[in-house]
């Protein structure tokens, strides 16, 4: 097995991974940086983000307001020291991107433009039409090309972390083209592997979002934090699950039920605001968890529109007019036209809530460090506890930047004065991965089909760990996922060849998803309260006495994982009431 010795390994070349790589290269040009990704960087799912990125820039805005919105939006499960750091770094990072060429939309005077977003008290979301994530990703990727010290390993599938002497010192990865296993030895390792929304059947997430990074760290002993908080985005296309950005509502789109009623006013987000004049932090600009939950209730009440893809409500943007739509929401128009054959200029679009984002992830602190020395994580795969129980739209893209950079700085700090690596021990660990892969190839006699197992997992997650959860459903889900994890050991590989064997990668991804799914569902079962995106029909209230804490799920091999808790850091904002009545109450 070839060994690649380097200073820092970054797993994942999405927004977070690229930001980390650039920060490393800029801070110390002598560092050797290996950037591993299972897809070419610009294919990373950051490219799908549409709406924008939040950072205080305008004179009517303040850091305190961004702080309050984030903490309240997160239902007080955010660590407030982390939020504090984040809000101050956010504008710097967004300006940095501007200096690197990101084509942000502009005001007439040439300054950057901002748009309103759900749950935000002020307009502070920077945007590049409705392709913000796309432009962020490409700006980062292209900027990274000028640094010779960033060596990319594109289409390398990272498998197992190499932990020795209590420190993370590398990773094994398969070169997808040749099927050859490589090991990377490094002083620091940064995971930026993205989310895991693919464990649900109906998701805005791309095929690559299978939680590999989370599972890798989890198996190596880092706990997964707050995994039960899975964000449903209110407005997904009912057939493909493609996202219709929150900017649809930010720019003035409204949600109506089959009777044409703007039903959000019936769920504590009223009174109704004038059509086409969205008001911040109320009605359509409520937070995602509340809006999605309201849609769920409307469907239960029979107020939904029936479509071939199930029950939907309608997103109406007709009043915005063609010119404005083409200027601000061209992608949305295109998506609806091609995938649903609806022209948003002429008709309302049916939408339904769709799995979108993992608030939970690898437990990290404000320095982006995991509990394993030498292992850092950033981006959606990490849970630095910025987003708490519900992420506000447009905070995530900035999180990638802020904590991607932070992870890089921490990685450099960690490298100072390290003892020499025990290469033999690392080789031995890497050999275990080789054995694991060989076993997959040599398995015989299994009866399980991979796509069958995957479907069972997805259906279980949707049925038992969806927008609303119950003790019974979660119990059932826990045993089902546990059973699937056992059966996973019997799946056989149909394709035994080496070169670009996607059958193999899908199999490995399924393994990652099952691990993450178990953490989600075990965490959800243990959390007997409703908070943010975690809603239980049997425990409808928030319970700050027992559950003002982070769920920590620890890997236990094939056994059911162990759960314990960690206190939330509260610095200045004690838990309060989430108010989305537009200052009317």
């Amino acid at each position, binding site marked *: 097995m070839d060994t690649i010795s380097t200073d820092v390994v970054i797993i994942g070349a999405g927004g977070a991974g690229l930001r980390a790589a650039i920060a490393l290269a800029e801070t110390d040009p002598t560092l050797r940086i290996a950037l591993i990704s299972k*897809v*070419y960087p*610009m*294919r*990373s*799912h950051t*490219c*799908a983000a549409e709406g924008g990125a939040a950072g205080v820039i305008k004179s009517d805005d303040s850091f305190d307001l961004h702080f309050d919105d984030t903490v309240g939006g997160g239902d007080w499960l955010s660590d407030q020291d982390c939020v504090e750091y984040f809000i101050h770094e956010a504008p710097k990072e967004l*300006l*940095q991107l*501007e*200096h*690197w*060429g990101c*084509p942000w*939309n*502009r*005001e*007439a*005077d*040439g*300054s*950057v433009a901002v748009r309103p977003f759900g749950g935000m008290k002020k307009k502070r979301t920077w945007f590049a039409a409705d*392709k913000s994530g*796309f*432009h962020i990703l*490409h700006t980062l990727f*292209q*900027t990274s*090309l*000028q640094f010779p010290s960033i060596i990319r390993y*594109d289409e390398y599938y990272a498998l197992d972390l190499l932990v020795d002497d209590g420190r993370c010192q590398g990773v094994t990865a398969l070169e997808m*083209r040749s099927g050859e296993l490589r090991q990377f030895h490094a002083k620091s390792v940064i995971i930026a592997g993205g989310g895991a929304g693919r464990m649900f059947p109906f998701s805005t997430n*791309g*095929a*690559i979002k299978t939680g590999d990074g989370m599972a890798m760290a989890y198996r190596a002993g880092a706990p997964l934090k707050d995994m039960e908080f899975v964000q449903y985005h209110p407005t997904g296309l009912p*057939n*493909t699950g*493609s*996202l219709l950005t929150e900017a649809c509502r930010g720019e003035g789109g409204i949600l109506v039920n089959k009777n044409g009623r703007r039903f959000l006013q019936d769920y504590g987000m009223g009174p109704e605001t004038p059509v086409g004049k969205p008001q911040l932090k109320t009605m359509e600009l409520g937070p995602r968890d509340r809006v999605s939950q309201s849609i769920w209730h409307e469907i239960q009440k029979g107020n939904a529109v*029936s*479509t*071939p893809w*199930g029950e939907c409500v309608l997103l109406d943007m007709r009043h915005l007019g063609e010119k404005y739509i083409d200027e601000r929401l061209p*992608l949305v128009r*295109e*998506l609806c036209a*091609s*995938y*649903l054959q609806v022209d948003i200029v002429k008709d309302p679009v049916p939408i339904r809530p769709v799995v979108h984002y993992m608030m939970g992830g690898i437990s990290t602190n404000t320095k982006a460090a995991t509990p394993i020395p030498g292992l850092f994580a950033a981006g959606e795969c990490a849970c630095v506890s910025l987003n708490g129980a519900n992420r506000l739209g447009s905070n995530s893209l900035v999180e990638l930047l802020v904590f991607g950079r932070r992870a890089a700085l921490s990685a450099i700090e960690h490298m100072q004065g390290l003892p020499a690596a025990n290469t033999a021990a690392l080789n031995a660990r890497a050999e275990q991965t080789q054995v694991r892969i060989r076993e997959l190839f040599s398995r015989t006699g299994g009866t399980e089909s*991979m*796509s069958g197992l995957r479907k069972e997992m997805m259906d279980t997650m949707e049925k038992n760990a969806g927008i609303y959860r119950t003790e019974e459903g979660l119990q059932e889900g826990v045993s089902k996922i546990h059973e699937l994890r056992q059966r996973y050991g019997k799946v056989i590989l*149909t*394709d035994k*060849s*080496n*070169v*670009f064997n*996607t*059958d193999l990668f899908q199999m490995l991804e399924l393994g990652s998803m099952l691990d993450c799914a178990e953490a989600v569902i075990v965490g959800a079962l243990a959390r007997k309260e409703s908070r943010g995106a975690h809603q239980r029909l049997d425990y409808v209230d928030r319970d700050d006495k027992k559950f003002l804490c982070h769920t920590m799920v620890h890997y236990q091999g094939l056994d059911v994982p162990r759960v314990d808790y960690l206190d939330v850091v509260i610095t200045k904002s004690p838990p309060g009431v989430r108010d989305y009545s537009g200052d009317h109450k």
Partner: protein
Amino acid sequence: MTQLKQIRVQLEVLRYNPDTDTEAHFQHYDLTCPEEWVVLDALNKVKADIDPTLNFRWSCHMAVCGSCGMMINGEPKLSCHSFVRDYEGTVIRVEPLAHFPIERDLVTAPDDFMEKLKRVKPYIIRKDKKPISEGEYKQTPAQLMKFRQYSMCINCMLCYAACPEYGLTPDFIGPAALTMAHRYNQDSRDCGRAERQEVVATHEGVWECTFVGACSEVCPAHVDPASALQQMKITSSIDWIVEHLIPGGKSAGDTVSREKAGDIK
């Protein structure tokens, strides 16, 4: 609840496995699916239910990640944006992107494109860098519009599969990479045009393009690379005249960028 119409889809997919094959061959798959499906959905169904050994790339399913480019009935297309209803009643022939080496089945090797993208220096180059604390570089909406279209490239390489000059002369830097150079040249924040000219104004640069225009016809992101290349031919020609025919003439690259370097206030 209304039901979606189901249609029969016949796929003819080019297969190649370097471990066992010396040549590529077509394999036929027959399936039924809802008419709203895209070719990628059909391929995924084949992979899940019929033949797990079929290989192809995809991720976003919304025409933005650029992974899923293929030749569909001879036309470079994103398979996540090619609707089976448009091919109803015919056999859909699916092949890997033309002009790129086939790694396996529908998976091609994009190394050449990646290398060329890097060569055009697709990033902001400045003579003076202002600190972040001084805020943004001002850019009016008009200045933004000047290059925005060219910044929409999703690197799907369909234009390379369409451009015959790239097929005939693989050294050609090609439409998307050159367009990326143009995108930065046109950005009011950039001063790097003179540097990029070292690649753009070479034989392998814009001069290999004979304005076939196929690149723009197939581009799913409406980037219009053909226009970028024509514009760069004109500016490169003016540069040449200034450099060679005007005594003491500096290349236009320098003059233009110096002008541009001044932040508009």
